[in-house]
């Protein structure tokens, strides 16, 4: 046992030969960070969902959800399929097929935009035809906040996806599979939140 390595600057010596585990692999810090971010976002959404459920049926005036809401099936199909396209894009990037990565990222962006377009149409319909705004009643207050919070997360996700799409043209996405994977996690999270919002707002709350 000869002391072979020092650590610190104080001249203290450690016997490296005595270390038993040569394999020392810790989880990737980016993954841990993004998981924590998702956890904290999850908590924010939970509070808004709790507020929605708490105020369900407590509006003093109309309109009520059953009078005005329709199931957004097409929008849901678009958003959920975008989880699949983003996963394909991630695999393509990891396999260094940048062209294919761009095609599938582009598809993801288009699906996300179509989702947002549907939300916009729905909101215009609610505001113009039913005069339901955030000030109308508790339903309006909680509906626009919860759906709006989700939509703003879709916008953030789309912005980041668009960034990677543009960077793909410049050839800067080569070898960035790990980081794109983190972005795809965020996108999956936004989709998963939509499942909860869909269930609470359009199925249970209607």
């Amino acid at each position, binding site marked *: 046992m000869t002391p072979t*390595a*020092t*650590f*610190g*600057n*104080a*001249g*203290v*010596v*450690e016997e*490296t030969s*005595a*270390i038993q*585990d040569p394999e*020392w692999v*810790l*989880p*990737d*810090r980016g993954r*841990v*960070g993004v998981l*924590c*971010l998702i*956890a*904290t*976002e999850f*908590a*924010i959404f*939970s*509070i*808004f969902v709790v*507020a929605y459920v*708490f*105020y369900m049926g*407590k*509006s*003093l005036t109309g309109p009520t959800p059953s009078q005005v809401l329709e199931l957004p099936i097409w929008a849901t199909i678009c958003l959920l399929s975008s989880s699949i396209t983003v996963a394909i894009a991630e695999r393509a990037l990891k396999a260094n097929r940048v062209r294919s990565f761009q095609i599938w990222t582009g598809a993801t962006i288009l699906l996300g935009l179509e989702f947002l377009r549907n939300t916009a149409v729905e909101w215009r319909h609610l505001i113009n035809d039913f005069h339901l705004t*955030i*000030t109308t*009643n*508790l339903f*309006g*207050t*909680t509906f*626009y*906040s919860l759906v709006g*919070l989700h939509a703003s997360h879709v916008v953030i996700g789309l912005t980041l996806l668009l960034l990677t799409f543009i960077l793909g043209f410049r050839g800067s996405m080569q070898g960035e599979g790990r980081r794109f994977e983190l972005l795809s996690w965020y996108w999956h999270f936004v989709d998963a939140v939509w499942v909860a919002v869909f269930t609470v707002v359009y199925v249970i709350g209607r």
Partner: protein
Amino acid sequence: MAATTHIPVGLGETEAMPSKLHGWLVTVDHKRLGIMYIGTALFFFAVAGTMAALMRLQLAYPNSTFLAPEVFNRLFTMHGTSMVFLVGMPFFAGLANYLTPLMIGSRDMAFPRLNAFGYWIFLMGGILLYFSYIAGEGLAGHGTAPDVGWFAYAPLTERAFSRGTSTDYWILSIMLTGIGTTASAINVIATVISMRCKGMTLARMPLFVWLMLVVSSMVVFIMPPLTAAQIMLLLDRYLGAHFFDTQAGGSAVLWQHFFWLFGHPEVYVLMLPGFACASEIIPVFSRKPIFGRAAMIGATIAIGMVSSGVWAHHMFTIGMSTASNIYFAVASMVVGIPTGIKIFNWLGTMYGGKIRFDTPMLFCIGFLFQFLIAGLTGVMLAVAPFDWQVTDSYFVVAHFHYVLIGGLMFTLFGSLYYWFPKATGKMLNETLGKWHFWLLAIGFHLTFDTQHFAGMLGMPRRIYTYPPGRGWETLNLISSIGVIFQAAGVACLIWNIFRTLRKGEPAGNDPWDAWTLEWATTSPPPEYNFAVLPQVRSSRPLWDLKHPEDPDWRYE
């Protein structure tokens, strides 16, 4: 050694002022950011402490006219908000930033730039909060700081009752500091999980790091309820939503639930860093390893989990169902069990040890006594019928100041004396340190012991004055006199810091003969912390190095 050839730019280097300042502004070094966090926390501590002194001056005599009522409202709001968000939280962030990488044998945090972002956004929040004294508008006109109390109960905060912008300053500044705190919490978690040096398994990790991991995990889940509720309040105030608008069917109680869902775990987020410091200091100054290490970790996790489910004990008087009252009373008392385990473990560490009564240890011993009493009044308050009697009285004020000053502030001051030599390379003066401790302890007990009795005699919180003849006069006068001693104690600390920075004794690398990795590098540590990353085999790596004939890893 390689390290001696490269001289890092650190504290005390002679360097031109502009470039020195520039270095601090653009730094992403966890040690500098840690010092900046703690320096900022101390600054706001002085500001918010002065506010407390002004309030005590006003309350020293009955029917005093020293402060106007609206000024008093702003003072207690700003005092509470500052102490929680601008003193307690950054102190946690600063300690975690400075010490975590050093203790786990890493060169920096997992995300250095996120770290800098967290600090600056927090500072922005602090400045914004105080900017309200210049730009805020309220019923009283220009220059109105927030005056809705630190928990800003709805519907008082709604537009109809809080005109102008002062409440918005409270919302936005706290939201900003919340983003900063969340950023540093995520950073700490990623650092602890992903950046440990070879051999630093979770089982060998210092208790300090363990506690910081638990605190950070709590922060990730408890800041969102506050942020979400604040977003709702902003929607109410600016877009005409009705979340907390009782006239449109909204619920003021919902705000209380959301706020305390954050607010109660927050107490433990503030307190656990104090426990973390005590868990490092007490063993070193008792010359014994910590007693019941695994139980300490388990108790910490238990505190983290149980404390997240007890929030409504702040709301016994809103008229909850009996079942809810019983649940929240019992659950609150359950917190006493893991906390009791910790107190017994610290005592067990001291028992039979060769105790050195240096300043850090004095503060920790003071903490043990005072925190015990704080815990006991906490159990009293958890009994719902008792709480109905003393809620919103000075008994509650005395209780949580016992927790946050007698418990938290004492350990934080202890940690300052303990790690100051590491951060600056100079020893704080022991004599001044002992003056600091004794003056603060005497002042603390004068101020807050008496408030328990004033509360029992029915003195409500947040009143700006009171009539004579209710038996409160003497108690309040003694309480206010205590402030003089506390202020003198803090003055000793400030003088001590300035004196030491100018002409303090050099500390050496390991002045306390401690066992964790931060003492293995130089004081102050170079920017890269360790020239060669350490490898550890036990929970006291430095003991192993100093005692190769009897290392800990033989027994662990």
